[in-house]
């Protein structure tokens, strides 16, 4: 078979799961509609057929019970992959995530481990309104004990999923719906990529420079990587050479990669689909400033969802969510305004 296959994000993550399930009998999947339906956002398509009902389990709408059960199973030697259908639903089951999965290893002094993957769909852009469009990166990254990853493309989707399954720590795997390459939802061009057939693992905490440039650093993650790249293309036409960094994981966070880039460019824009305040954008800017505010030749800029519930109607949702144009404008601001 061709090594140059192009896969969608969803097919890439499913392939990682299937490959690990083939070699590791402790891996199993559970969640709402992960069986015959194959996951509302196609995160489990075909798994039931290959692995059967015992290892691919539809659950009741009982997130607290089945995520808690994931923790119990993980502590008893299994490697569960549990799906929380939309990240927005964390509110009904956060205790099982942040107080149980994320802390039991610490509470046991390292004697118990919780090798569970919690995969969950994030993001807006298709008018699913305020309870089904959130990204919530910082909500999880703020709380200790879980690793948090958010791939921007199919290649990373597979490699990060493989790492997540093999990790002995709980991993929150946040996949953006708009990057899944679903037949019924538009996706940016770069979301589907060539994906090697053999299993491979991408280490957590290593950001990737997706575009090199010397004038400004754009830090992005998940969907905003694509907006950032589009912005960089537009900026290139204006003679601005932007460097784009895809963080790939929030915990661990590759601050070094950001610093290395800002040392070069002196200018910083951070783009994140999550809410603006107390989020990733602040964390990145603060990480640079606390290293040395003198690295910044101009005021850094955030491009993020304002602090409002995500609105339903298209004009308002478009207003709220980041896009290439907003990033481009933010970059222009960093170029125009020199430090006093």
């Amino acid at each position, binding site marked *: 078979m061709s090594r140059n296959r192009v896969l969608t994000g969803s097919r890439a993550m499913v392939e990682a799961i299937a490959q690990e399930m083939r070699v590791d009998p402790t891996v199993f999947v559970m969640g709402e509609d992960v069986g015959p339906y194959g996951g509302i956002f196609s995160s489990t398509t075909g798994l039931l057929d290959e692995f059967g009902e015992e290892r691919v389990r539809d659950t009741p709408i009982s997130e607290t019970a089945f995520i808690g059960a994931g923790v119990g199973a993980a502590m008893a030697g299994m490697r569960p992959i549990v799906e929380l259908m939309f990240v927005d639903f964390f509110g009904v089951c956060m205790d099982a995530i942040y107080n149980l999965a994320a802390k039991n290893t610490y509470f046991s002094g390292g004697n118990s481990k919780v090798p569970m993957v919690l995969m969950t769909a994030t993001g807006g852009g298709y008018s699913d309104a305020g309870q089904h469009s959130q990204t919530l990166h910082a909500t999880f990254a703020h709380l200790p004990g879980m690793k948090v990853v958010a791939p921007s493309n199919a290649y990373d989707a597979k490699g990060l999923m493989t790492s997540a399954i093999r990790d002995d720590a709980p991993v929150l795997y946040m996949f953006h719906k708009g990057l899944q390459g679903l037949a019924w*939802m538009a996706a940016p061009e770069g979301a589907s990529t060539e994906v090697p057939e053999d299993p491979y693992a991408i280490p957590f905490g290593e950001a990737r420079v997706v575009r090199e440039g010397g004038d400004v650093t754009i830090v992005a993650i998940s969907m905003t990587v694509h907006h950032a790249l589009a912005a960089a293309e537009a900026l290139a036409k204006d003679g601005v050479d932007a460097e784009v960094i895809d963080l790939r994981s929030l915990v661990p966070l590759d601050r070094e990669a950001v610093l290395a880039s800002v040392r070069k460019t002196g200018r910083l824009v951070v783009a994140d689909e999550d809410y603006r305040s107390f989020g990733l954008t602040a964390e990145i800017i603060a990480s640079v400033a606390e290293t040395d505010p003198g690295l910044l030749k101009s005021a850094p800029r955030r491009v993020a969802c304002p602090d*409002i519930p995500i609105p*339903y*109607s298209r*004009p308002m949702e478009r207003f709220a969510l980041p896009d290439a144009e907003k990033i481009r404008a933010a970059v222009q601001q960093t170029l125009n305004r020199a430090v006093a």
Partner: protein
Amino acid sequence: MEPSKDQLLWMYAAMAKARHYEDTMARAYMEGKTPKFDIGAGLVPGEMHLAAGQEPCAAGVCVHLRAGDTVTATHRPHHVAIAKGVDLNRMTAEIYGRRDGLAGGRGGHMHLFDPAVNFACSGIIGESAGPATGAALAARLQGSDAVAVAYLGDGAANQGAFHEALNLASLWRLPVVFVIEDNAWGISVPKSRSTAVPDNSVRARGYDMPGVHVADNDTLAVFDAAGEAVARARRGEGPTLIEVQTYRYYGHFQGDPEVYRPKDEVARLKARDPIDRLRGHMLDNAGVTEAEADEALTRVRAEVDAAFEFARQSGEPAPEDALEHVFA
């Protein structure tokens, strides 16, 4: 409890209106989204959960309610909103994401709020239970005889929120009725694969409250059970749990591939359509004439059509209006 002729006609109209609404919405929703379904395209934004088939749960309960009573509904809210008397024009404009919508387009199809008739709904499974209990508590504290009704799907009966609210409502003997619309599915998962008991009304015993099971999507039986439950609540005797066996004709959401359900299921269900059955009953047993029934039909269809027209005429909201109304 026997419905009066007026009540029968009211239920018939409410059900026919909801049905026409959903059928109209099904078409409107697909405008611009075909031939290849694209959820982000078309006239009507977002996800769409239609309730055609489930009308008895709405009309058979809400016929007993007043504007001052509270209803909290689910992600599948239109039939209940209609029966509760939500402003149909503004509701439709909201679903179209327009300026004249109930929330100016901020909430959308799963977030319809009409304080004039104390209606609210939500996209989170089980989230209706707590607020209805709280509305009932408010009624008690305010010394009114208002009641509250929480709607839940059969899948929602396995959420923690359901359990907690039932216990609290019974403990405090609050005037609230919990109505489970058992349409046999939670998206693709059949009830038998999500719920350890075939009939959720048995769970009522775990909270020392009456539990009533209504079989076969029977509007008159819903009327009866709900009438009793609402009256009991108004008398201050506490909550009731009702599970109604109902059907949904459309997929879970529009665009649902429905790979999971038997091909003939819907056809079988439609053969026992509850609106047809209610009409038959009214004509045969309650002295309603064909003309009266048809008049109701014509009237509600016109209202629905006008609401869609209203929505289409309403303008798009200004983008930056997104920043308004975060805080009261």
